[in-house]
């Protein structure tokens, strides 16, 4: 019987080695896999490379891992705090200013498409985004039919940490509102996708055409009801 549900958060993050690259779903506070990130904090892996739109959503989860010195590099699109008076990425800013963490800043759509390329088995691709800017420096560029393009590389990872709304034991997922964001494409780009979910439903409990991530892209599902953000 195919059953991807694991009983505990500890089990869901077992086996993650030092030096792993982990794709982390979420945008602002929506769809952040805080329970998985906190389980990883307890698990102990270090020298991690995290891939995420932002550099944390307050002190919990990613902020705790960064503050504990467990993250070597962050690949992100917007790692500043949006509101300096209520910083969402203070731990990252402290580590970055202290030279303790590396940052690769990627345009948001380019990040999505690099993940898509990795998950869809594509090679490098040309995008017009960032042509003529400093984020294109060091990359191959080409003008095709009068439009300038930058060559970008697929971005794959050992793991993806996802927060979804509902799952079944085959790993089919759906998401609430804008909690979807990067998660479906991240599920495709990781060898092992781990989803924390609000609710587990019986097989057949999800409307097939409303499944947003088919279970083939998911390896482990763990219930984290009411998980704090």
């Amino acid at each position, binding site marked *: 019987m195919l059953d991807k549900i694991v009983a505990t958060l500890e089990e869901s993050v077992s086996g993650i080695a030092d030096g792993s690259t982990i794709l982390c779903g979420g945008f*602002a506070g*929506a*769809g952040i896999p805080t329970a998985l990130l906190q389980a990883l904090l307890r698990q102990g892996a270090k020298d991690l490379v995290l891939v995420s739109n932002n550099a944390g959503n307050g002190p919990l989860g990613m902020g705790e891992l960064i503050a504990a010195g467990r993250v070597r590099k962050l690949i992100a699109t917007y790692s500043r705090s949006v509101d300096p008076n209520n910083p969402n990425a203070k731990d990252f800013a402290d580590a970055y200013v202290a030279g303790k963490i590396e*940052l690769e800043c990627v*345009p948001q759509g380019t990040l*999505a498409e690099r993940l898509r390329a990795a998950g869809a088995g594509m090679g490098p691709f040309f995008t017009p985004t960032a042509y003529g800017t400093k984020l294109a420096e060091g990359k191959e560029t080409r003008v095709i039919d009068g439009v300038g393009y930058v060559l970008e590389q697929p971005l794959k990872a050992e793991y993806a940490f996802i927060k979804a709304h509902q799952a079944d034991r085959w790993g089919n997922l759906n998401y609430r*509102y804008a909690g979807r964001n990067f998660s479906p494409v991240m599920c495709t780009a990781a060898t092992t996708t781990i989803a924390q979910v609000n609710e587990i439903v019986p097989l057949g409990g999800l409307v097939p055409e409303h499944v947003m991530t088919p279970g083939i892209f998911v390896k482990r599902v763990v219930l984290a009801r009411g998980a704090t953000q």
Partner: protein
Amino acid sequence: MNIKAGFKPLSRLRMAQLVTLDIPEGSYVNLGIGMPTLVGDCLPPEREIILHSENGILGMGPADASRPFDEDLVNASRKPVGLQPGASISDHVVSFAMMRGGHLDYTVLGAFQVAANGDLANWDTGARTNIPSVGGAMDLVAGTKNVFVMMEHATREGESKIVERCTYPLTGAGAVDRIYTDLAIIDVLPRGAGLVVRGMVEGITRGELQELTAAPLKFVVEVAVLKH
């Protein structure tokens, strides 16, 4: 900026109202953070204009104040939003296909500088202490059909934000189509053909506007008078 005796700058609200006049019914629009969010407040409710947020919301509306905060329903500025009847939500691949793929009709963005050739600088002042954070700005200007900038004409220190060449790092080369400032509405001509003033705040002269602008200006035959 020196406020000359003959004119005073437009309010931000008035600038936003002027932008809305140029966004027709049925348009798909992405509003940048900061000043451009005022445009959303000024859109006339009888005109159906569909607002896009980069986190996948199409058909964004004001948050329902009677509902508790829902962290899964926010905009790119992390603020609570609502969904209009007819709204849709997609993932980032599809949301950015809308942006980069040329499906959005208009975007209105803030800026640090706009150059006479349409180069836009709005993501990084290049300061050493900055944490590089581009978000979706480069994708947005790479694909949106009409890129509008809404900004003060000058910095607080009085330097023109319209320049011959941007000194800050670029968001996009030749990206901007039109500039709305507190003094004027200025079109950026394609292929580096320069800047043309379409409207000026009441009381200012062409000479005064040119003096306050660090790039050469041309003027349409009948420059509109922008009233307060």
